[in-house]
């Protein structure tokens, strides 16, 4: 009798254990299937510091480089292959490494550090974000000049050079956003920089010492107002 009771309770315990474990693992399985939704960040306008000094080591080279007037770019054509100011430029030339070329094996060979390219009789512009190597995620080729259907998209006006000073002679503010373009020297120095925005003093690498973003194009900042209603206790 005792022996039988023992065997029965042994199987009962085994059965309970089975149910507990099965339930536990089933629940675990459900949890994994649930992906928590992260709320989006609110942008309140402090630009990232990432890459501020990235090309600073070339500052003196930029300074000593003679200006190649015959091959310099100007803002006149700069926005031609951009859908709007700040849009990723499309690729205005054939893909030298073919359709499957990517990053370091293709585009970055010229666009990481720039330099003169005989084939296009031009200097390669330097990318401000060489760490992003899937270039053609954003930059597409222009393989045809015709359109599928006429578009009504209007081109909004690009920021102008030379009109961003607050005072006569004071350092101009940045008239554009700098997300993914935190590294100023890549576009504002070197032979591929459009002549209107080529910096006269590339050796002063701490750009944001004097030039601060004028972020009005993203969020209109009102002038400073005293509120005195701080919520401190």
């Amino acid at each position, binding site marked *: 009798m005792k022996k039988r009771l023992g065997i029965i309770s042994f199987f009962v315990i085994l059965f309970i254990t089975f149910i507990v474990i099965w339930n536990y693992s089933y629940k675990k399985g459900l949890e994994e299937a649930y992906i928590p939704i992260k709320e989006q960040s609110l942008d*309140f306008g402090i630009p990232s510091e990432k890459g501020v000094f990235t090309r*600073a080591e070339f500052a003196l080279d930029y300074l000593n480089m003679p200006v190649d007037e015959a091959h310099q770019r100007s803002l006149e054509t700069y926005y031609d292959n951009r859908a709007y100011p700040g849009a990723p430029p499309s690729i205005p030339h054939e893909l030298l490494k073919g359709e499957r070329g990517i990053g370091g094996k293709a585009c970055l060979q010229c666009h990481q550090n720039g330099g003169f390219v005989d084939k296009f009789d031009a200097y390669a512009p330097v990318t401000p974000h060489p760490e992003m190597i899937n270039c053609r995620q954003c930059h597409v080729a222009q393989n045809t000049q015709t359109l599928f259907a006429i578009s009504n998209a*209007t081109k909004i006006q690009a920021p102008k050079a030379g009109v961003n000073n607050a005072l006569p002679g004071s350092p101009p503010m940045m008239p554009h956003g700098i997300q993914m373009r935190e590294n100023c020297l890549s576009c504002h120095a070197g032979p591929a920089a459009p*002549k209107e925005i080529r910096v006269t003093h590339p050796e002063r690498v701490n750009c944001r010492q*004097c030039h*601060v*973003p*004028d972020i009005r194009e993203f969020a209109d*900042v009102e002038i400073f107002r005293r509120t005195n209603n701080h919520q*401190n206790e």
Partner: protein
Amino acid sequence: MYTSTLTDRREFIKKMAILSAMTAAATMFPGIIFAEEQESNIPEGANLDWKKGPCRFCGVGCGILVGTENGKAVAVKGDPNSSVNKGLLCVKGYHQIMCIQAKDRLTHALVKKNGAYVKTPLNEALDIVANKMKETIQEHGKDAVAMYTSGQSTIPEGYVASKFMKGAIGTNNLDCNARLCMASAVAGFLTSFGADEPMGCYEDIDHADYFITWGNNMAEMHPVLFSRMLEQKNRRGAKIIDFATRTTRSSTASNRSILFEPQTDLAVANAICYEIVHNGWMNKSFVEKHCNFSKGLTNMGYGLEDNYSFNDKPSTIDFEAYKKFLEEYTPEKVAKYSKVSVKDIKYLAAIYGDPNKKVVSYWCMGMNQHTRGTWMNNLVYNIHLLTGKISQPGNGPFSLTGQPSACGTAREVGTFTHKLPKGVVTNEKHRRLAAKIWKVPYERIPPKPTYHATEMFRAVDRGDIKFIWTQVTNPLVSLPKTGRYRPGMEKDSCFVVVSDVFPTPTSDVADVILPASWHIEKSGLYGNSERRTQHWDKMVEGPGETTPDAWMTIEVAKRMGFGDLFPYSEENHVEEIYNEYRQFHEGPKHGMAPLEVLKKESGAIWPYVDGKSTQWRFNAKYDPACTNGEDFHFYGKPDGKAVIWERPYEPAPEVPDAAYPFWLNTGRVIEHWHTGSMTRRIPVLHKAMPGAYVEFHPEDAEALGIRNGENIKVSSRRGSCVLPASINERGLPTKGQVFVPFFDENMLINDVTLDAFCPISKEPDYKKCAVKVEKA
């Protein structure tokens, strides 16, 4: 045809006309281009009237040229003749004049009547101030009135304030906001060398091989000097090592960034000394000839209680005792609690220890706003003294300042409670000299110091001070634990007079508001971090009844019957006061340049001897005051020797715990200067940095489920403040730390900070207290 030079005002208007036409054209023809417009659209202002002066903001003391046209300031550029900045400024400097025209500028005196401010003629307002001060003295005694001035006061302003309080009234109730930023540096210099202010100068940057910055984000706070360092880095391969508790723009630009746990800088500095001594890197002959060893009291407390007082009792020790003391600070032991690796400590020590490398150490608020700030200053001097790397071009410790005349006014004129223009009130000889020059009875100057800044506002809160006059400063944003001092100043027991240019939270509690002239609306002199005195002449007229602070002090003194002590003329008082003040510093140790020289040149470094600036003090090659016949002479101390101090590591007064798990660090951003009362009224700067925020380490933010921009309540045992979160944007604090800039009067982080201070210097620590954070 169109040229890019501006010939006169008409040219300027013409350019404006061109601009408006271009804008009009651009709306009609999007993408329209006019060639060669890079620099030419806005005129360079070549024919404006350019006047020289020092910049209004930080302690670097850049030379500026202000372009005026028809009595208005319209442009600023760097002074190419100034050896400080060589023509370069920072974004604050370039736009500084834009605050003058702020709409809410204080243009007339305001007197509070039945709870409302009434516009009052300045003469009447000054009568009220003088009468109130006289009454208070009659009823409650001299020590019931106080004046709180500033490291932004000009030299003449500080001088008349000191003469008025100490010489005319006869109270030492005069302190200034430099107590909140430079007092530890002063105490450090006095204890180590017996003479205040750095021995080197900015030219060190051109010679050094290594720059080691101690808790100092120079790229944002001293950007012009940092740019000079970057230039040397690029051109000569000089190296910058950033030693800090937060990753900043400076860290990014440095060759190496080393992070440490708050407060453990004391231990790391000692560990560097340990390495230097134990690896035989000590410069024995220098130490034997020029240094003594001392120790002081320990476990000093933190000054958290009212009426706290402390006096250090130094005693001389020998080298063996010092060596034994260092045994506690082996890199291995220190690495455990400082979170700096043994390798990094040895790396730093090896840089200082290498006799062939020239090293400059830079620091500012990280080391000064520290409950052991004096010790920390001593410890860095120890490193430089042990290795003999001091007072030579490219070698030396360099304490930077945050205010334009923290050195020139607060420290040299001495607007601290214990100071006189030369020496201290406790010294009879110094009191006698002051009495002689001021032409007052020697007995009138009291020999005992009274309140330092924090204690002064505690006394206001307690009701001990019945009248306080603040000039050029905004204590209700800048004091620690403003949650106590704001209600304190609001009390009826104290009559508050505030002189300022703009309304601030401090002027909000004033009984009388006096309209002050801004920087270029008056003449004056500032003294910067490298002992450079700079003069400027008035450049534009101020609006309304705005008046220079010095002149308002003099007017009140006259109304109180001290007219014979202030025989200056309104037009020329700056010159007359400076000439009187110069008498205090005559001699080769601190001689000041004559005004004619300062008017002509872009500043001169004191000691100014025989028509020459002294760039490296204590070094016989450069400093004519060295008289001991050796290479170096630390003449601030009676025996001519500098002191190497035994200063241990002691923990911070409040450390993170279960209830308040984060360190709170506060500081500045490049766009704003101090409490923002000026820079926030400059549209360029406000647009770039519209409000304060609280920085998190991304892992802390993730653990708390905090996203960027979300409102966060930061609270301590004293108060709380709600700010948007900033994750990995401007700065990146170490894990377990949050950082908040203090410029925003609409988000007062100083309600949260702790009013603990260094017992020796009485400078509060704004960099460390314990807080909790939660979603608001």
